[in-house]
C-alpha cells in the first residue's frame, strides 16, 4: 500500500485562538523518518528546480532517512541560511512541493500527496538549532580587513550579514526600527514563526561578530556616501518594501481602518495583544473585515480573531477577496488554519467604500460582487465587478492587506540609485549590484515575489558578488 503523507501536528483550533503561540508543532523524529521515506529519490529530481535557491532536496531527505540529521542540516545550509525560518514560512506548495513528482499535475499548487518538504526542512533546521550546528568560519586574512554595511535586518539583510561574516568580513547591520528581524518581527505573527527561532538566528549572527545597530534610518541619519567615507567597502540594501497600499475608495481614512502593516506592527512588534503590560494599543472590532488574499491578509485575520477571543468577544472576522479561493496567493496551510479558527471568507467580493459614524469610526463596508473574466498579467482570472450588485456588511474594524510599495526614504536622497517605475531599486540580477558602484540590493526593495526565501536567495547572490569583488 502506498504510504500516506504525514500530517503535521498542530495545536487544536479552539485552544490556539486564545493565544499567539506557534500553531504548527513540527514533525517528531518518527514522523520525519516516515515522511522522508515516502520520497522516491528520483533519478532526475524535479523538486530542486522548484526551490528558488536550489536546495539539494533529494540529498537532504535521503540524509534524514539515514538518520544523519546533521548532514541534512548542512546540505540545506549550503543554499539556505535559515532552514528553521523557511521551513515555517515558505509557500512550499507553490515551489518545491508543486514540482514534486508525487504532486497531482495541473493544479495551481501541490496536492497533499507531494512530499512535505518544508516540514522536513523545518525538522532538519530545528535539529541544527538544538544541536548548535554551525558552518565553520573561514577567516580569510585578506577579507578580514574589510567592513560592509548592511541596511535592514530582515530576511535579506540577515542572510547577507551571515554570509559575509563567515568569511571574516566585519559586518554592521543598520536597522531602522528598535528591534531587528524586519518583516519576520513586525509582520509575521508569533503563531506562525516562534520568536525564539528568530532570536536564536539573530543572536547567532551576533556571535559571528555581526554588529546590529537599531534606530538607524539610512537616508535620514546617514547617506550611502557617508558609509564609504567611514571606511565601509561595500553596502547591501535590504530595506524591504515598506509602504502599504490602500484601496483608494471613499471613506478609507475612517478610524479603525488599518493597513495590514499597521495592524500587524502594533500586534507583533509592539505587542499590543499584551496591552496594557505593553503600552501600544490596538482596537478590537465586533465585526472585522480584512481585505486581501495573501499571507498578510491571513495573518491579519487570525490576529484580529485572536484579539476578539482574548478580549471576550464573539469572534467575527471575515476576509474579502476579489477572486475565489483557488486564486488566493496565500499559503494553503494559512487558508486552512484561518478556516479552522473560524475566519469567514467572502469570495468574489470587492470593497467599494466605507461609511462611518459621527465620531469618525467605520461602521459599514460597501461591496460589489465580482465575476471572473479572462486571464490577466498575473496568470490569474481577472475579477470584474458586477453592475448593480452593491451590498453592505457591518464592519467596525477593517484591515487593508492588498500589498506594499517601495519605501522611498533612501532612494529619494540617493539619485545615483536607479529605480524603476515602481520605485524598486534596479539591479544586475547576476550580482545584485545597483547602478551605484559597490552598492548591492536584495529582497523586496528590488521587487519580485516577496517571499522570505527569494529575498535570502538574492542576498546570497549579492554576498557572493561582494566577496568576489573584495577578493580581487
Amino acid at each position, binding site marked *: 500500500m502506498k504510504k500516506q503523507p504525514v500530517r503535521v501536528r498542530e495545536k487544536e483550533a479552539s485552544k490556539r485562538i486564545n493565544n499567539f503561540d506557534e500553531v504548527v508543532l513540527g514533525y517528531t523524529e518518527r514522523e520525519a523518518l516516515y515522511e522522508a521515506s515516502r520520497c522516491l529519490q528520483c533519478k532526475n529530481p524535479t523538486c530542486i528546480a522548484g526551490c528558488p535557491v536550489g536546495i539539494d532536496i533529494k540529498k537532504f531527505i535521503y540524509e534524514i532517512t539515514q538518520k544523519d540529521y546533521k548532514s541534512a542540516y548542512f546540505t540545506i545550509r549550503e543554499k539556505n541560511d535559515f532552514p528553521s525560518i523557511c521551513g515555517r514560512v515558505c509557500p512550499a506548495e507553490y515551489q518545491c512541493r508543486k514540482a514534486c513528482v508525487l504532486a497531482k499535475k495541473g493544479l495551481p499548487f501541490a496536492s497533499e500527496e507531494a512530499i512535505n518538504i518544508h516540514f522536513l526542512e523545518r525538522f532538519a533546521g530545528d535539529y541544527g538549532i538544538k544541536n548548535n550546528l554551525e558552518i565553520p568560519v573561514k577567516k580569510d586574512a585578506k577579507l578580514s580587513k574589510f567592513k560592509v554595511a548592511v541596511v535592514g535586518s530582515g530576511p535579506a539583510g540577515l542572510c547577507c550579514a551571515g554570509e559575509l561574516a563567515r568569511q571574516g568580513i566585519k559586518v554592521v547591520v543598520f536597522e531602522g526600527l528598535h528591534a531587528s528581524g524586519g518583516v519576520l518581527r513586525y509582520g509575521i505573527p508569533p503563531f506562525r514563526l516562534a520568536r525564539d527561532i528568530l532570536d536564536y538566528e539573530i543572536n547567532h549572527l551576533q556571535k559571528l561578530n555581526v554588529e546590529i545597530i537599531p534606530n538607524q534610518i539610512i537616508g535620514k*541619519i546617514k547617506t550611502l556616501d557617508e558609509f564609504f567615507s567611514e571606511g565601509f567597502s561595500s553596502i547591501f540594501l535590504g530595506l524591504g518594501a515598506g509602504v502599504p497600499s490602500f484601496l483608494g475608495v471613499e471613506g478609507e*481614512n475612517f*478610524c479603525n481602518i488599518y*493597513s495590514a502593516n*499597521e495592524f500587524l506592527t502594533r500586534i507583533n512588534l*509592539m505587542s499590543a495583544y499584551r496591552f496594557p503590560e505593553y503600552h*501600544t494599543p490596538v482596537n478590537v472590532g465586533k465585526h472585522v473585515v480584512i481585505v486581501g488574499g495573501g499571507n498578510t491578509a491571513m495573518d491579519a485575520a487570525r490576529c484580529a480573531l485572536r484579539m476578539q477571543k482574548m478580549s471576550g468577544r464573539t469572534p467575527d472576522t471575515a476576509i474579502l477577496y476579489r477572486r475565489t479561493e483557488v486564486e488566493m496567493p496565500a499559503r494553503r496551510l494559512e487558508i486552512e488554519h484561518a478556516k479552522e479558527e473560524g475566519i469567514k471568507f467572502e469570495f468574489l467580493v470587492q470593497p467599494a467604500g466605507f461609511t462611518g459614524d459621527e465620531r*469618525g469610526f467605520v461602521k459599514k463596508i460597501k461591496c460589489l460582487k465580482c465575476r471572473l473574466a479572462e486571464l490577466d498579467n498575473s496568470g490569474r482570472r481577472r475579477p470584474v465587478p458586477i453592475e448593480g450588485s452593491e451590498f453592505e456588511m457591518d464592519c467596525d474594524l477593517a484591515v487593508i492587506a492588498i500589498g506594499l510599495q517601495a519605501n*522611498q526614504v533612501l532612494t529619494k536622497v540617493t539619485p545615483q540609485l536607479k529605480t524603476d517605475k515602481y520605485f524598486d531599486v534596479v539591479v544586475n540580477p547576476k550580482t545584485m549590484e545597483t547602478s551605484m558602484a559597490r552598492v548591492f540590493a536584495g529582497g523586496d526593495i528590488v521587487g519580485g515575489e516577496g517571499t522570505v526565501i527569494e529575498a535570502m536567495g538574492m542576498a546570497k547572490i549579492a554576498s557572493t558578488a561582494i566577496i568576489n569583488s573584495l577578493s580581487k
Partner: protein
Amino acid sequence: MKILKKKDLTVSSEVKITRMEILSPELAKKAKPGQFVALMVGKNGERIPLTVVDTDKDKGTITLIFQEAGLTTRLLGKLNPGDSLFALTGPMGHASEIKNYGKVILVGGGVGIAEIYPVAKALKAAGNHIVTILGARTKELLILEKELKSVSSEIFMVTDDGSYGRKGFTTDILEELLKKEKYDLVYAVGPISMMRKVAGFTKNYKVKTIVSLNALMVDATGMCGGCRVNVAGKTKFSCVDGPEFDAALIDWDTLDKRNRVYQKQEKHICNLYKL
C-alpha cells in the same frame, strides 16, 4: 540616548511641560528645523514622535519639549538626567523649507510654541521679518517667550483666561495683522482646533500657510500609514510626506477624529499605572 539636562517649564500640577537635552551626536548633526524623532521610553513602551526643538552640534545634544498628555509622555517626564531612552530614531520627516519669504507670521499654540521655535530661528537667519504670536490657555503654559522674542521683530502674547498678554486667541491677533498688512507666509503649530482656525483666516487673506501636523504614528518611517491624512483629496503620510503641509488643503475633520482613536485606552492605561 542619555538625558543630560531636564527642566520643568511649568510648575502647574495640572499640566506639565518639560524640556530635555538628550545626548545623540548623530541626530544633533543631522536634524534640521521641522524634523522630528521617534522615541520609546522603555522596552514595553509606545513609539511616539516629538519635534526636535534645538540641536547643539558641539555638545552632541538635541532638545525636546513635551507636554505630559498620555502615558508615554508622563513616563518620559519621570526620567531624569543620567537616565537613557530605550529607543531614539530620526531625524524623520521633511525639514522646513527655509528661505527668504519676506514677512512671516509664526503662530504657536500651547506646546506647539516649542515647534515653531527652531523654524523661527532658521527663518530669521535667512533674512525674514519675523512676527510671532504665542498663545496658551493660561500664563504658565506660555513657554519660550524669551527665546522667541530674541528672533522676532514683533511678538504678541495671548492667553485664553487673560492671565498674561491679551485675553483671547492667537487668531484674534492674526486677523488684525493680516487686515493691516500683507504677509508672505504664515507658519502655525498648535492644537488642531487652532491650526484649523488659522487656516480659515489665512485662506481669506490668500496667504500661504504651513502647518506641522501631530498625527498619531507607530513606526514613523512610512511603514504603517497610521498617520495618514487627507491633503487635497489625496492620502498622505504625515511621517514621510510631512509633517508640514499646506494648511489650506488639509481635511481637518478626519485628522481630528483619527487622533482620538485610542482615547479610551489612553485613559485606562494612565489610571492603571496611576499616572
